[in-house]
């Protein structure tokens, strides 16, 4: 079966005002349907650029992105993006339910169906009561839940998340991580989750794609062989979790020093054989 997302040789160079910045040099990896893949890399390595290219918001300089076999040239239907800046991504002039409903108005759906999707999405992020509130009346964590609900209601084939929990406090973050994993297991959607947090990447992902420092290439792909059932208390103290996070950490340090795959990792983590 073909991969849902197929990225090959992706390169993005920003040109402007005499400065030339190579944000992403050469990225090749795939995301299979139903997978939860985390992309982790040092800050400034072009993670956001990668997501914008995948989402069709930016045109790559070279290489190609295939989504369900078709090249991405603009924002494709069937893809939803959750941004880090939830406060700016939600519209303050619309109530929570209106925010969630807006993307659905672009689809050919009946009003009753739209309402159903909105109510269902809000309920699944635990915000059924907040439908009539304005986003700015909610806490940061709740606002990001609204943004997630908006993406869920859109019924995307793939959900792209750009460091969605970087701006919330640690406890809220743990709750939201469990929410995302829960939604992934319940709904079987494909998720590509970008983060700079190694623990988060290992805790959430079925597979972790480690990016190098800029100029960015794929440093390593790693299968996370933790049990499906994960929770904040036991998973994070499991020896295997520690091994994996140490391995990813080493890879990122190596990436920062500019070396490709140093000792192979003393944590004895098997790189995923599938690219």
């Amino acid at each position, binding site marked *: 079966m073909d991969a849902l997302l197929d990225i090959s040789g992706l390169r993005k160079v920003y040109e402007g005002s005499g400065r030339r910045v190579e944000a992403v040099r050469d990225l090749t990896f795939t995301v299979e349907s139903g997978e939860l893949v985390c992309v982790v890399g040092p800050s400034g390595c072009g993670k956001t650029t990668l997501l914008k290219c995948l989402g069709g918001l930016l045109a790559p300089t070279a290489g190609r992105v295939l989504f369900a076999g078709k090249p991405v040239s603009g924002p494709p239907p069937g893809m939803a993006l959750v941004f880090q800046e939830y406060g700016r991504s939600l519209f*303050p002039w619309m109530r929570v339910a209106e925010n969630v409903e807006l993307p659905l*108005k672009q689809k050919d759906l009946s009003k009753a169906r739209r309402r159903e999707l909105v109510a269902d999405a809000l309920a699944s992020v635990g915000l059924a009561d907040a439908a009539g509130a*304005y986003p700015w009346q909610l806490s940061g964590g709740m606002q990001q839940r609204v943004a997630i609900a908006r993406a869920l209601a859109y019924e995307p084939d793939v959900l792209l998340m750009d460091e969605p929990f970087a701006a919330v406090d640690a406890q809220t973050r743990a709750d939201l991580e469990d929410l995302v994993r829960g939604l992934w297991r319940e709904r079987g959607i494909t998720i590509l989750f970008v983060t700079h947090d190694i623990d988060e990447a290992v805790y959430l992902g079925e597979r972790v794609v480690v990016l190098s420092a800029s100029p960015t290439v794929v440093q390593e792909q790693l299968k996370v062989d933790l049990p499906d059932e994960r929770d904040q208390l036991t998973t994070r103290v499991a020896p295997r979790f520690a091994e994996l996070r140490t391995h990813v950490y080493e890879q990122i340090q190596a990436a920062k020093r500019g070396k490709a795959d140093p000792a192979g990792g003393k944590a004895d983590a098997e790189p995923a054989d599938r690219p």
Partner: protein
Amino acid sequence: MKGLNAALGAAGLAAFLALGEVVPRTGLVKESYFPPTSRIASALGDEITDGAFWSALGDTLTGWAIGLAIAVGAGVVVGVLVSVVPYLREATASTIEFLRPIPSVALIPLAVLLYGTELRSVLLLVVYASFWQVLIQTLYGVQDVDPVAEETARSYGLGTWARVRYVLWPTALPYVMTGVRLAAAVALILAITAELVIGAPGLGQQIAVAQSSQAVPEMYALIVVTGLLGLLINVGARTVERRALAWHQSVRGEVAV
């Protein structure tokens, strides 16, 4: 605090009116040029029982309202188009900066040549003066669109029209509202000016007639009416603004998060 402010405001106004009563009566200024408050009040009482006053008021408000409506409609449409169509803003910027500072009253001779003392003369001046207020604010407002909000809309497949309607317009609305409030005040000034100078029917013309027929208290009474009109327009515009922008930081106040 609010009650105290209101009381202070009322006391200040009462003192001002009392001063207007006392100063002419003590002979500090000539009563024939500056009648005491009570005489202006009684002239105002006479005016509001006179049909001619009401039709003049109606004429002034008609010129104001039609002119303002045209200016707001044109200002918003032109502002959005200039911002949305690529290169149009750069191409029009210098022309706008040239046309904007031309005082509307400088167009009075043109208005008379074109339309004489018709309503259209008033409209020309009112529209010219208030159009820029709305246009400039709309241009600023459209620039304020948050790139993240814009990218969110694009990523969910909202087309140009949907993005104008759901993202650009609500973002620009606070600015547009400010523009409308400024334009409403300017439109009233220009409507009265046009009537006063050109002689188009309305309160301005009534003031000119009162002045030339030495009806000094009546003249002051009409001036008071124009002041009240300006006050009402400003209060009305602010009320509309608060209603329409209940979600905006400037209106919603601090929110406990």
